[in-house]
């Protein structure tokens, strides 16, 4: 019975994805140097097919329409031979990518709209659980329906990131692209030429910088020693980067040995100064996913493709302030309805309309049906058990 539900759900989603790609294939946006990229897809029976290559956009579109994948990916790397095994591809650089995900922001409202769903029987739990009490399955999925506070927080973090990239890293606006991931996050892709050849270690250093990790008093010229501490103001001063952020936040108005010494003494010595730096770095550092940025062989969701975890499309955000993912990246019809059976009562908003559904069969627009079924929070009603 459960298998039958999954099959019906998949069939429903598959038909709509097929229709989406047939009608909106122009949404698929090719990456720069598309012939040097590796492509990958996920099929509706959960197979991953990698090492694909398309020299022309037309070929890629034809492949997608013909195969209707559940997800479409493209490498951030540029390769000489994209179809070869990973060690023989001939790496020629990689876009620098950043992922800001709701799960990393740890917002207080998260619990209100986070669901733990059994991957087998789709029973929904509101609290974190490791085992399904209904079927004893141990594979529990975590899904969330972002509220407007979440979306605003994500947008704010994304804007902070682009500011960081522009101000500290000198990345020009035209060399970066901001997109909604199609689920619970935003992606920022940097394709400025001087950053493309950086290896994983160098990218990891950039991640540390953006996240504010391991900022030490030593980098501000304050060293720990057996007498407490000693100060040597760096020749490169406090006018740039994190040093500037720290002195501004601590309201250190004068950069001199004497002033700094008095300041550190006042707040309680080296350790207190270090704690203060840690706190500021943690507040001002951004919450990005380190693994995404340091991976130079990653295949990354393609712009214009649908995200099978939500049915929403990954879409470029040219105006982040006005962007609303629950409206702008939802491409399914509102004029057709579908009967769904909810696995849990839900309150949410999609395409500007508020929904308050209880745990019963509801008739909803197709756009809502795709969203909830993709999130594993509902099933096609005719098959519900």
């Amino acid at each position: 019975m459960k298998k039958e539900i999954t099959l019906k759900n998949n069939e429903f989603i598959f038909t709509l994805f097929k229709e989406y790609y047939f009608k909106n294939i122009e949404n698929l946006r090719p990456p720069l140097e598309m012939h040097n990229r590796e492509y990958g897809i996920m099929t509706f029976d959960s197979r991953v097919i990698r090492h694909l290559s398309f020299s022309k956009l037309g070929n890629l579109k034809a492949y997608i329409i013909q195969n209707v994948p559940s997800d479409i990916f493209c490498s951030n790397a540029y390769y000489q031979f994209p179809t070869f095994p990973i060690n023989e591809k001939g790496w020629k650089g990689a876009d620098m990518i950043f992922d800001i995900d709701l799960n990393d922001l740890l917002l207080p409202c998260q619990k209100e709209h986070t669901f733990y769903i059994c991957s087998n029987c789709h029973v929904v739990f509101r609290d974190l659980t490791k085992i399904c009490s209904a079927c004893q399955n141990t594979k529990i999925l975590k899904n969330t329906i972002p509220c407007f506070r979440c979306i605003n927080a994500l947008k704010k973090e994304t804007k902070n990131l682009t500011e960081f990239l522009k101000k500290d890293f000198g990345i020009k606006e035209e060399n970066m692209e901001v997109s909604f991931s199609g689920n619970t996050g935003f992606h920022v892709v940097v394709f400025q030429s001087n950053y493309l050849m950086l290896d994983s270690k160098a990218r990891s250093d950039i991640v540390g910088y953006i996240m504010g990790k391991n900022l030490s008093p030593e980098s501000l010229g304050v060293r720990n020693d057996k007498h407490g501490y000693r100060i040597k103001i760096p020749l490169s001063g406090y006018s740039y980067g994190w040093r500037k952020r720290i002195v501004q936040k601590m309201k250190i108005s004068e950069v001199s040995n004497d002033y700094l010494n008095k300041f550190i003494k006042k707040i309680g010595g080296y350790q207190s100064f270090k704690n203060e730096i840690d706190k500021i770095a943690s507040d001002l550092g951004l919450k990005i996913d380190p693994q995404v940025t340091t991976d130079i062989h990653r295949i990354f969701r393609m712009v214009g493709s649908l995200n099978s975890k939500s049915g929403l499309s990954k879409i470029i955000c040219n105006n982040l302030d006005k962007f609303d993912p629950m409206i702008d990246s939802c491409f399914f019809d509102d004029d057709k309805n579908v009967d769904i059976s909810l696995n849990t009562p839900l309150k949410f908003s999609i395409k500007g309309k508020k929904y308050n559904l209880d745990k019963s069969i509801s008739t909803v627009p197709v756009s809502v049906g795709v969203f909830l079924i993709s999130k594993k929070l509902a099933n096609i009603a005719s098959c519900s058990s």
Partner: protein
Amino acid sequence: MSIILGKDDLAKYPFLEEAGNYIRETHFDLDEFNRSEFLHIIERASKRIEFELIQGKVFIDLEKYDIELFTFLVSLIIMNYINEDSAIKKFSLFEAMRVEKFLVSDLSKEKDLTRKNLLISKVFRDLFQLDVELDPKNNHLFKMNISDYLIRATSFNEEEWKLIGRAVDNGYVYLDGDETVRLIRYEIYNLMYNRIKNMNITKIPEQIKIHAVLIKNKLAPAIRYSHTTTDLPPCIKKALELLNKNENLPHSARFMLATYMLSSGKSVDDVVLLFQNAPDYNEKITKYQVEHLAGKKGSQTKYSVPACSKLVNENLCYATIDCRGITNPIQFGRKNRK
């Protein structure tokens, strides 16, 4: 009007293209080194090599440019004739450190901005394709592209090179002269090493050959560490192997080796002796550092041996089947002794 380097600069930086041009323009024939008036050049080159390879000190003596250019040339020929990889590596590192000293001093003290810019252009841009600029707001500061910085700085393990601790703005990292030069140490080293390795001299002058043989004989076989290595964990064995080959161990490997040996009960002096074969060995500095690790200097903290997980991250782990179940190299010996 084109600006040219002064002759004093050629003396300090004899690897620059202008230095090679100067020698070519003199139509000097290598056979002329067999003449007695050039003997002092060969002797000076021998002294320079012995000072660096045997005494382990940077040769900072600076003569007139023509003497320096020919001394440098002869040094390279001698090293090429000796043809021992470990000796060439050590010589290359010391020569890189010699260049570093001159470059730091020139970049920090030079008041003539034109000359300063010219040096930057000749050394950083022409030789290493590294775009370094003077900071227009502060002539003692240099700025370079963040990616150029990261490509070099990530090979250093010290925290101070992490980007977060640096003055970063609008795509640039701001550094003082000392830091800027330190970043290209390995590039200068490689330049020296490759110059020696790629030399193709059909007939080496007899006088140079005689001096080269003398130096080769003086190069006593490197002191080998006598510890029976069978009871040592593979990461420590590997570090010792590299040291015995006169390889330049990264800071993290030196830290691991020294803390391991101290924790195994070796004395500070014994541990210092281990590093004798390191190409940049300096007894005084090594002793201070080992004493620091032993908790006898500085903050009086005795440092522990890094955990296996940390060594994995630092690419220092060479685990074998005997390492099963241990989380720190220090447990290796204990486990085997049970």
